[in-house]
């Protein structure tokens, strides 16, 4: 049985890395007594797979992973058991059964939405967003393993808009994967620059991932759409 989990990462655990999270979930599964399937071999590991890794320091309302069970378990029960045994700050918000043959989350997720909050209000934020959207080409030198790579970050976003607090919040919808993907703070820094903040000024940001989406039948949907039956 394959179970898809949606979970949130809260403020009090926002500094854990993706590897830290994977270790945590494996131990949570053991504490909770979830009948997870293990791989064969000398170093057996539980059959888990994850969506898009969450950057260190970023919180999230909706992350996804799936787990293969060696024997069936009610999805609600799975969710409740995990929540009882997860560290405070991490919680499973939904669990659904999905087809064992469904493609991997990693390959399905194409869009990540973020809410970026600036510590200090920036009066020109909205105009910065407008000028970001108006440009066709916004070059950025992306650091990579073989030196920097010049990319166009205008290409890496689907949409950008100001949030409820228009002088502090940026809502950005970003493409995931591919060579043009960048960290959300890169977009925020560019917008701030376009709004008149000097490029070398380090801004204090709070970044929250609001959702991850896949494209299905001409719409953006969450991976929970994979639910069987």
């Amino acid at each position, binding site marked *: 049985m394959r179970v898809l989990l949606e979970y949130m990462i809260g*403020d*009090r*655990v*926002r*500094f*854990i*890395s993706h*590897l*830290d*999270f994977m*270790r*945590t979930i*494996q*131990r*949570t*599964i*053991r*504490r*909770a007594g979830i009948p997870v399937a*293990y791989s064969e071999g*000398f*170093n*057996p590991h*539980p059959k888990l797979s994850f969506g898009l890794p969450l950057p*260190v*320091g970023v919180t999230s309302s909706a992350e996804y992973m799936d787990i293969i069970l060696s024997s069936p378990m009610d999805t609600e029960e799975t969710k409740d058991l995990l929540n009882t*045994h*997860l*560290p*405070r*700050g991490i919680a499973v918000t939904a669990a659904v059964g999905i087809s064992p043959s469904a493609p991997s989350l990693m390959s399905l997720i194409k869009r990540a939405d973020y809410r970026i909050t600036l*510590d200090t209000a920036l009066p020109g934020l909205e105009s910065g967003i407008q000028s970001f959207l108006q440009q066709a080409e916004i070059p950025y030198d992306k650091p990579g393993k073989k030196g920097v790579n010049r990319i166009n970050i205008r290409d890496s976003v689907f949409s950008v808009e100001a949030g409820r607090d228009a002088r502090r919040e940026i809502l950005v919808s970003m493409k995931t994967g591919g060579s043009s993907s960048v960290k959300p703070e890169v977009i925020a820094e560019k917008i701030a620059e376009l709004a008149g903040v000097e490029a070398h000024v380090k801004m*204090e940001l709070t970044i929250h991932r609001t959702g991850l989406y896949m494209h299905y039948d001409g719409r953006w949907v969450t991976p929970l759409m994979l639910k069987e039956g």
Partner: protein
Amino acid sequence: MNKGQIDRLIGQVSKPVRYMGNEYNMVEKDPASVEIRFAFAFPDVYEIGMSHLGMKILYHLMNEREDTYCERVFAPWPDMETKMREANLPLFALETKDPVSEFDFLGFTLQYELSYTNVLNMLDLARIPLLARDRTLDDPFVIAGGPCAFNCEPLADFLDLVALGEGEELIGDLLDVYKQWKSEGGDRDAFLLRAARIPGIYVPKFYDVEYMDDGRVKAVTPNRDGVPSRVVKRVVKDLDRVYFPDRIIVPFMDIVHDRIMLEIFRGCTKGCRFCQAGMIYRPVRERSLETLLDLADKLIRSTGYEEISLSSLSTGDYSRLEDLVRDLMARHWSERVSLSLPSLRLDSFAREYIEQVQRVKKTGLTFAPEAGTQRLRNVINKGITQEDLSRSLTDAFGSGWNNVKLYFMIGLPTETTEDLEGIAYLARMAVDCYYGVEKSKREKGLKITISTSSFVPKPFTPFQWEPQDTIEELREKQHMLQKLLKLKHVDYSWHDPETSFLEAVMARGDRRIGQVMLTAWQNGARFDSWAEHFSLGRWMDAFTECGLDPYFYAYRKRDRDEVLPWDHIDTGVSKAFLWSEYMKALNEETTPDCRLSCTGCGVRRLGEGLC
């Protein structure tokens, strides 16, 4: 500074999770609801400190008390220290993020000498006066425990109290006395005087040290009434009755020992003469099989850990090791919990264990012959023969292991060129053992790692009177071994002799070293056990500045009747026993395992029926 600001700062440094807290099983209490706040400090980074079993025990033990909230604090890595100083953020505890200066106690565990400058740095970051005599009623009491506390004279000026021996019972006594003092009121000395009457508590300021003109200690004498002339360590009598946590904090980050540590016994009966742990943790006390199996069940359930290690000074000596390994495997195999057996002794190693263990996980095997020849092994009383080693290696290779580490020490008393050649001989023998195993039974890709550390004479051991080899001598020996060990399948690694030298100075230091330490710290010394931060030059300058000679501490042979700076501390093992062991060492005579018959070390004095 509020939590949001602290979080902001944490987000700017490497490995922020070190300072985050909030791990599973972290204890949360309302600080306003307790009478005592205790900050348990490990003077190194999180991933090292969190690997320490003693801290886990005392943390959960203290938090069992409703009147106490124990929190944790580790040494901030230099990038974090810089940020904290820039932002004027004082050292805070992981649980509440409150400044540790507001706590009643700041307790350090002293696991190695090269962490001492981190103690000073943490006090400074906490804004607690470094010198105990400068502290007021507004400051916490600074207490230290752990193996290095037995000779904590170099830190004496910075500590209010020292806890000697096992803390489980002592800490309760101390907290009770503190509560009483707090309710009655009084100055700091009033509490310290009461605390000094608790067995195992040493208050350095209540002892005066006199020196002779040549720099040796003349006498250490109490300067108050009601203070014992010798402080005897605390020992827990029954390991089945003493507290052991059934839940422990599960860190998010990958720490050094990221597993359940099941403490199977304390003490060691082998009597290796270089080994301080083997002397100061006497006598041997085992936990019963039933208790251990029960604890393992509970700990796996409460942590979800995927690995258990059996913890002790000499795991192979546990009287029911076979049963324990078999039962643990049988119970937890279905949950894929693996078992690792560290510090396995050669002479008790058996093929069956190897096969049991590899059912789940196959890590490298480690053997510690410590010396290259039988003669030198007799000197240090390491009762392993070449035949033992050869048989164990052949067994291991025959069971599919191909990665073996052999640990040795160089600079041991009476060592000659022949002993170093013996190390290379054993390396070649290991290769031969491998090729002696039928080709179909052995795993391809043999790797033998020979690792040497440099001998550091430690207080409370038979070698406490011995000089250390000089840095130059150790380097020469390492060069020689590099040449001797240029062998196929063999790698050689060694320790920096400069850090071993400083370790030797601190280990047998007296109170005057405190000034040197303060100077070195002011000149930037911290994280001395980390090669990238250690600078011997900084320390040598500090010695010059303070007018003290480090060679006096590291390289000098002591006389039998010399008053040692730690003679007023009683570990149970008598000085007379240590001297007789020292003499036997020089005569290349061995002393049998004291499980076979009592060797009269003196520890029996500490209690009826202890051993």
